[in-house]
């Protein structure tokens, strides 16, 4: 009865391996969840400017910083911050009970891939504070320059509204801003990446759409309403 022996053996193998795998998964699960959480926290702290990008931090330090200063909340249709889960998460940097800055998740199509990142704004609701991308598959040397310090520091201090308070977003131009944009408009534009037109345009579009989604909240900040 060779086939009987095979069945018994197969069954035995399955039980042994299944038991081993379950054990490994259960024991390791908490570690894995924490890693994922810290990874996200790391990116948010970076875009909020809490951590120094040139320094490395331990997982515990990140967790501490995050717990101390960042609150994850959600924005509803009226632009109010609440704890009710919506598709508009927001990360508030609160120090001494005042809002210093906030970060929002951004994503959109690049050339080869979807770009994922975070964008942070000052508490005035109109000035960009930082941008970071944590996942993309763009061409090294061209589109992947969205990771470069020169490109990301481009955004700092740019305004998403014009002098009248109308939403304009921040545009990514072809080439350098100084070549194509008049001086009074330059606070709404950043330099594009040479040779990476599609990726630059992708960043332009994703900023427009994602900033628009949080516009109701930003408006309240600009009217100096109390949001938290």
């Amino acid at each position: 009865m060779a086939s009987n022996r095979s069945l018994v053996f197969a069954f035995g193998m399955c039980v042994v391996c299944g038991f081993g795998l379950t054990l490994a998964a259960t024991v390791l699960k908490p570690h894995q969840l924490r890693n994922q959480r810290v990874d996200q926290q790391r990116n948010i702290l970076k875009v909020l400017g809490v951590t120094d990008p040139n320094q490395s931090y331990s997982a515990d330090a990140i967790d501490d910083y995050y717990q101390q200063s960042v609150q994850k909340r959600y924005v509803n249709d009226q632009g109010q911050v609440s704890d009710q889960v919506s598709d508009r998460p927001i990360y508030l940097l609160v120090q001494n009970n005042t809002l210093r800055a906030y970060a929002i998740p951004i994503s959109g199509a690049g050339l080869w891939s979807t770009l994922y990142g975070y964008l942070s704004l000052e508490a005035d609701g109109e000035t960009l504070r930082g941008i970071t991308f944590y996942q993309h598959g763009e061409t090294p040397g061209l589109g992947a320059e969205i990771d470069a310090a020169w490109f990301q520091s481009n955004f700092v201090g740019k305004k998403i509204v014009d002098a009248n308070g109308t939403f304009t977003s921040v545009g990514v131009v072809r080439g350098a801003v100084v070549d194509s944009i008049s001086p009074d408009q330059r606070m709404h534009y950043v330099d594009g990446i040479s040779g990476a037109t599609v990726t630059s345009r992708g960043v332009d579009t994703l900023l427009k759409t994602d900033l628009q989604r949080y516009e109701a909240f930003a408006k309240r900040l600009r009217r100096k309403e109390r949001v938290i």
Partner: protein
Amino acid sequence: MWRRIKSSQAFAVFTAPLSIKNPVSVLVLGICSSLAVTIQLKTAVVMVLAMTVVLTFSNGILSSLRKIIPKNIRIIVELIVIASLVIVADQCLKAFMFDVSKQLSVFVGLIITNCIIMGRAEAFALANNPWLSVWDGLGNGLGYGIILIVVGAIRELGGAGTLWGISVMPEAVYDMGYVNMGLMVYAPAAFIVIGLMAWLQRTIISDMRKGS
């Protein structure tokens, strides 16, 4: 003592895959992962560790079970053992080396399909005793490792100017107009580097044969 080690069968089994029977550059196995994970030295090293551990254990386990595994379900049993080991390795990486496991993404899981592992199980472990099989697994893992680590070092140095994430290209070189080689970041670069290594190795081996 050294002479006794050198003349032992285990020694021969262990060292052959490091040079003349190298799984990657001579037998051209396991190429897929060599292309995918060698952008950085760190990912290459972690991959090699995971691979070597899985290979050594799978060889050992399968070899000790070789007399009781029914022949008609041989392949599926090999797969169960290998798959379980790979999943455990993957889970451990996720728990303890999160950054690297994020970069390795699916490729740890794909160790299951790495031809070297099934190949060694079929060709060696099922026909030899556990002692030799473990040495064979270790040797093949490291033979795979040598190639991956060299390719990873070349690609990271060329593509990013760093090694193990630490910048080693002096700033002065960049000031002189040097830029990182974008090609090195693409998978085809690994193909070219492995090809050149295979060329070099075969030339050396054939010279050795002529010499002896």
